[in-house]
């Protein structure tokens, strides 16, 4: 019980956010890809991963190796094979539908295909009778149909009602996006109030609509008009928009979306629960699985140094950190993720001891600091001062035996430099880079870089770090 309390108390709000976020991402992946080939392949790869882990734990070398190889290629396989599906998900939907929407996997009737097909038939004056079934079973009232089971398309509907087609006189029954039957004989309406212009096709449409909840579309080959029969009503529709609206009303696709079925709700709930449990399991295995120790040597970074102080030296440039955490997390640490930063803001001239605690050490989430060696860093700081120093030329080489370098003048003679007081106090002269006398034959001028041998020294603001050297060469006295 105590362990359980300790465990729950160790969970941070970041962990909860982490699990929730990734659980939701996993759930959305499921929602967006369910029913597609991509989802099935993803499930296959997940199964393969499980198989690989199982075979590895059982010591099945070849099986494990084989599964690992396929998994290694999984990312490539998913991207290449399912590029179209991925594109459909990312481009075809708006952000809201990707993040929040639930695409229906149930019945989908291609309203646009039907509308286009029907008005094309009407334009060509080709008679047609199309039934969109509802919940009622049509087998009791519609007879003699020939099974078709074809995906509804404009070309197919056009060809079914083409005058030379043997089944063009009957009705077709569409359920979902599939043409289920063709050449279906429908019962005729016996109503007397129907216009006399209505022929057998329109009476058949009205007859079916009266007896079932199906919707029937009749295309007149004489007038080129489109009529819709639903329930007791039959009327002519004037345009594509009106027909589309009528079809949507019948199918309930956009105007009044059907409520989610209980089965679908259960499926989504289970998927959500599994997603969150899976991510929680992964998080648990990452953060609490197999507690391990690891040591890392990390260089120390010094921050917020007072500009009036210079860092002279430290007792150590790097510290050894002993870290603990799960083996998985420790293995995945990159050195740049671990930082040791010492704030020099409270430092003073002289030697300052700085204690390295967890405040100074930044670690990736899930990793904790066990110890630091050395625990204290001694940092020597010194006040920055400005000093004017004479510049001397550092000659080198061998001058010709009959010549002598008689005079040298350096301009400027002195240069102002800034640096730590302790360093500058011990420096009395700045030297130039080496200038060779090997080739000197007559008087002249050269420019030379002034060397600031200590790393903390720099020319004062406005001061140059180059000098001009004028020299006089004379004949040497015997």
């Amino acid at each position, binding site marked *: 019980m105590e362990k359980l309390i300790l465990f729950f108390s160790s969970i941070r709000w970041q962990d909860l956010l982490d699990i929730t976020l990734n659980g939701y991402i996993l759930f959305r992946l499921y929602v967006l890809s369910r029913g597609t080939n991509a989802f099935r392949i993803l499930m296959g790869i997940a199964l393969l991963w499980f198989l690989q882990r199982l075979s590895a734990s059982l010591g099945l070398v070849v099986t494990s190796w084989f599964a690992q190889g396929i998994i290694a290629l999984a990312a490539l396989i998913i991207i290449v094979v399912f590029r179209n599906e991925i594109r459909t998900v990312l481009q075809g939907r708006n952000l809201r539908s990707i993040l929040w929407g639930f695409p229906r996997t149930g019945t989908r009737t291609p309203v646009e295909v039907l509308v286009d097909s029907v008005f094309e038939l009407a334009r060509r004056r080709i008679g047609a009778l199309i039934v969109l079934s509802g919940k009622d079973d049509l087998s009791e009232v519609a007879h003699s149909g020939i099974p078709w089971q074809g995906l509804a398309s404009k070309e197919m509907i056009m060809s079914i009602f083409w005058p030379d087609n043997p089944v063009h006189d009957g009705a077709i029954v569409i359920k979902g996006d599939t043409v289920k039957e063709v050449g279906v004989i429908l019962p005729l309406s016996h109503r007397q109030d129907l216009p006399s212009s209505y022929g057998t096709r329109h009476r058949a449409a009205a007859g079916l609509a009266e007896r079932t909840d199906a919707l029937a579309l009749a295309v007149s080959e004489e007038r080129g008009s489109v009529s819709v029969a639903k329930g007791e009503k039959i009327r002519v529709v004037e345009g594509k928009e009106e027909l589309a609206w009528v079809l949507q009303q019948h199918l309930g696709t956009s105007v009044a979306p059907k409520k989610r079925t209980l089965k679908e709700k259960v499926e989504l709930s289970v998927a959500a629960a599994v997603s969150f449990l899976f991510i929680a399991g992964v998080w648990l295995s990452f953060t609490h699985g197999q507690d391990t120790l690891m040591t890392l040597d990390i260089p120390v970074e010094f921050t917020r140094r007072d500009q009036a102080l210079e860092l002279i030296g430290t007792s150590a440039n790097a510290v050894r950190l002993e870290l603990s955490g799960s083996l998985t997390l420790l293995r995945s640490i990159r050195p740049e993720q671990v930082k040791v930063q010492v704030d020099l803001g409270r430092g003073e001239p002289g030697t300052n001891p700085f204690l390295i605690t967890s405040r100074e050490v930044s670690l990736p989430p899930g990793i904790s600091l066990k110890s630091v060696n050395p625990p204290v860093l001694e940092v020597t700081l010194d006040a920055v001062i400005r000093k004017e120093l004479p510049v001397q030329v550092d000659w080198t080489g061998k001058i010709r035996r009959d010549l002598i370098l008689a005079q040298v003048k350096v301009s400027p003679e002195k240069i102002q430099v800034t640096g730590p007081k302790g360093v500058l106090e011990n420096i*009395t002269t700045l030297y130039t880079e080496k200038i060779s006398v090997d080739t000197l034959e007559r008087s002249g001028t050269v420019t030379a870089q002034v060397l600031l041998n200590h790393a903390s020294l720099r020319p004062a603001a406005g001061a140059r770090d180059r000098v001009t050297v004028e020299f006089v060469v004379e004949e040497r006295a015997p």
Partner: protein
Amino acid sequence: MIYRAILFSALLLFLAAERNPAQGGTQKPVLVQAVVCEDVRDGSCRNQGAVFSVTVGGVACYTAFDPVPGRTVIYHNWYRKDELNAKIRLVLQPPRWATFSSIQLREIDKGPWRIEITDQEDRALRTLRFSITD
């Protein structure tokens, strides 16, 4: 009577000494010449320069003071880079005086040198700079 004459003479000498402090050593010697050369022969510097080959064997620092108010001491401080290599004590005699110091050169002496000429209170009178090369 003779004692009075001796006492009077002593008093005059004391007053004269008090009036002329230069004679008593409070005035400083004035440095009129300071050069570095290969060697000093017959009281003069040969081959003054700023660069000397280690093959010449030695280098001298020649300094001349005028006036020299009283017997005093100066120093020639020889530095290689910033490290004191030799501190040579030289005595100046009034009324004027020229003196020099020298060092023998070795292979390890190559590099930039400077000579600080200081008085007995360690005040710098002048700094001479030169280099020893191949």
